[in-house]
């Protein structure tokens, strides 16, 4: 366990955080060997009888201005990773280096209160449930103003003006500030959550399933808004999601997690069309294609995710992996660079056989586009207004 994680750590630092570094692709956030363990208590004395290793040695980096998606099944630790990075959950171990424009590199994991108070405004979060994440007793104006008030950035008229500006920024109206959250639909509430997150001009926003609770037609509006804000405000997103079609649309790079570990990380195109981990392949195959002529014939993955309280030996995926060999249950594969013609690509996978296996990429829908409006002939036949 310990040995493999150090291996992973050195592997990563040797390879320059897994991405070819260039002037414009400076990492904003570097996470090394991040761990978050929850104790299981039991018995009369509530003694610790085990640990749930929700996040167990996660290595990843997020470059300035990009969107890194984290995907995986429920319970894989993707949300806990996001929360641990913001120290909403106190990490058990590891390093979280945030490159701040003023303070330089700060290790968030061990930062003291004063440093945290200065770093926190730069790292914000958008939550999944727009109905639970807004205080129903606060007006929308107060919800959005709260981060500005707490950090003593603005007050009085300047504060009210900024709130109005933020509302417009996310596609709402300034007069909405005096209303309460219950007067808004799910999509509008998520816009309020976004306005609150961008109020302090953050660098990084952790987006924890921001569109999962929304209807499809509204989901598209929120995704477009997030992309728009990213390009206008230079935001960096860490986009946690289980919906791979949304992830392909929004992200530059993707990390796949399984039972508390990153099993594959790479650019969206590499990961979707040239996956190097059998788990990624299975996830991609399982996406229900919106195309009746492209039906899934075989179930890509049987069984359930193992419990993070008692994970299997070796590679955690070997119990469900169709390509498993004896070595898979004995040795934990480190996250290694996938080399193309001997060159590093920034694409990493934690599989013993990532070089040998020929894995299937995402299935591309045969439906190119759906015409927006009825065809001219039909429209002409209908009475004109």
């Amino acid at each position: 366990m310990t040995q493999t994680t150090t291996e992973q750590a050195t592997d990563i630092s040797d390879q320059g955080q897994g991405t070819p570094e260039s002037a414009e692709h400076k990492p904003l956030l570097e996470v090394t060997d991040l761990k978050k363990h929850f104790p299981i208590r039991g018995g009369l004395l509530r003694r610790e009888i085990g640990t749930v290793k929700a996040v167990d040695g996660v290595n990843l980096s997020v470059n300035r201005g990009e969107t890194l998606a984290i995907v995986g099944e429920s319970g894989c630790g993707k949300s806990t990773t996001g929360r641990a990075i913001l120290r909403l959950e106190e990490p058990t171990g590891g390093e979280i280096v945030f490159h701040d424009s003023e303070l330089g590199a700060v290790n968030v994991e061990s930062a003291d209160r004063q440093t945290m108070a200065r770093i926190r405004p730069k790292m914000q979060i958008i939550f999944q449930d727009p109905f639970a994440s807004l205080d129903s007793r606060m007006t929308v104006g107060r919800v959005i103003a709260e981060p500005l008030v707490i950090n003593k950035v603005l007050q009085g008229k300047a504060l009210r003006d900024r709130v109005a500006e933020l509302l417009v920024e996310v596609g709402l109206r300034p007069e909405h500030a005096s209303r309460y959250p219950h007067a808004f639909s799910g999509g509008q509430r998520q816009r309020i959550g976004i306005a609150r997150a961008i109020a302090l001009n953050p660098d990084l926003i952790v987006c924890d399933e921001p569109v999962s609770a929304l209807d499809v037609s509204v989901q598209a509006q929120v995704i477009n808004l997030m992309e728009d804000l990213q390009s206008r405000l230079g935001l960096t997103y860490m986009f946690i999601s289980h919906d791979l079609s949304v992830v392909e649309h929004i992200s530059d790079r993707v990390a796949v997690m399984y039972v508390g570990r990153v099993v594959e990380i790479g650019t969206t195109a590499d990961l979707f069309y040239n996956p190097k981990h059998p788990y990624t392949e299975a996830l991609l195959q399982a996406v229900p294609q919106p195309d009746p002529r492209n039906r899934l014939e075989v179930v890509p993955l049987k069984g359930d995710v193992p419990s993070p309280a008692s994970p299997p030996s070796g590679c955690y995926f070997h119990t469900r992996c169709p390509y498993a060999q004896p070595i898979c249950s004995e040795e934990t594969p480190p996250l290694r660079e996938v080399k193309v013609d001997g060159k590093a690509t920034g694409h990493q996978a934690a599989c013993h056989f990532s070089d040998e296996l020929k894995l299937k990429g995402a299935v591309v829908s045969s439906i190119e586009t759906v015409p927006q409006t009825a065809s001219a002939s039909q429209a002409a036949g209908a009475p004109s207004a």
Partner: protein
Amino acid sequence: MTDGPTDTIVSVKDLEVEFPTSLGVVRALNGVNFDIPRGKVIGIVGESGCGKSVTARAIMQIIERPGRITGGSIEFHRKGSEAAADELLSEPEDKDAATRSGGVDIAKLDPNSRGMRAIRGAEIAMIFQEPMTSLNPVYTVGSQIEEAILLHQTDDKQQAKAQAVDMLRQVGMPNPERIATSYPHELSGGMRQRAMIAMALSCHPALLIADEPTTALDVTTEAQILSLMRDLKSEIGMSIMFITHSMGVVAQLCDEVIVMYLGRVVERASVDEIFYNPKHPYTRSLLRSIPRIGAQRQEKLEVIKGSIPDPYTRLPGCTFHPRCPDYMDGVCNTIIPAETLLAGPTLHTVRCHLYSDNNEGEPDPLATEGASAGGQATDQADKQPAAASALKA
């Protein structure tokens, strides 16, 4: 639309459901028409508040109070003989629910009547989105399945027990004997949904209504459940009414599709027609707004402008007109479009003025009394979440 009563298991006509609340009447269903063919999977898609779950609950007669069916009929045809109706409607007060074609009009039955109780669970079974809330946490999975069998099929407890274990095996549970003695909290989400399916199928229903059964599950588990339902359908030969908001799931599982918007069916067709030849502007917009894998990712996603109006707003004419890209002033906002059967070999119907020949449809009395309502509705938030959730339920 029907090929005769023997080919349809449930035929819904002009169904209307209302929820009277202190803030006004919510018209959850506004004249819904469709048939469920025997042995087919029919998908009902639409966004929240479109009435898809209310439709399912109306068929089961489990609409939450104060909601009630205010009009229309739900004709249920049992497999085989016409005597079936007499058998189900043994009580004198249920007799008037019998239809001329030998079916049973569920809308006429009292929710607590003997006839309805004989249909619910045994003839038509239902599974829900949240398996954790639909299973009783203090009884074992096995005893909950036995309960259904004892109620409808046999009095022999040993036989019921054996049958329950057999059902669990049939839905692909590993070690069904052990699962039967486990409690719901000991099972994973996917296993719980399998247990729910086992319970629903234990009485060999002719129709299974599945209300978003995979929405709370991961894609890999979802794929397992969809494949299980496909297998069971062909093995048992039942019909499935599958309610979902996911176009992907519809494409993967269904034979026929009904698209609903604000309490009306706007389009129905075979699954291939819906995806390759969608006609209604709402169906097109829905299909355009979903991100597809492999589509040009740098492009912006299409959006349907505005949002779903709150349930108290009553829109004149076609309810989609404030959001419609093909909106025709003077037509769409005044006349409720009639259902038009499109020419061609397939039964493809659409409820839109673009396809009706001569503006057929009833002029909407609302159009004259509240002309301004339509314009505002797009931007209105769900003012009353309580009512919104009533609609969803």
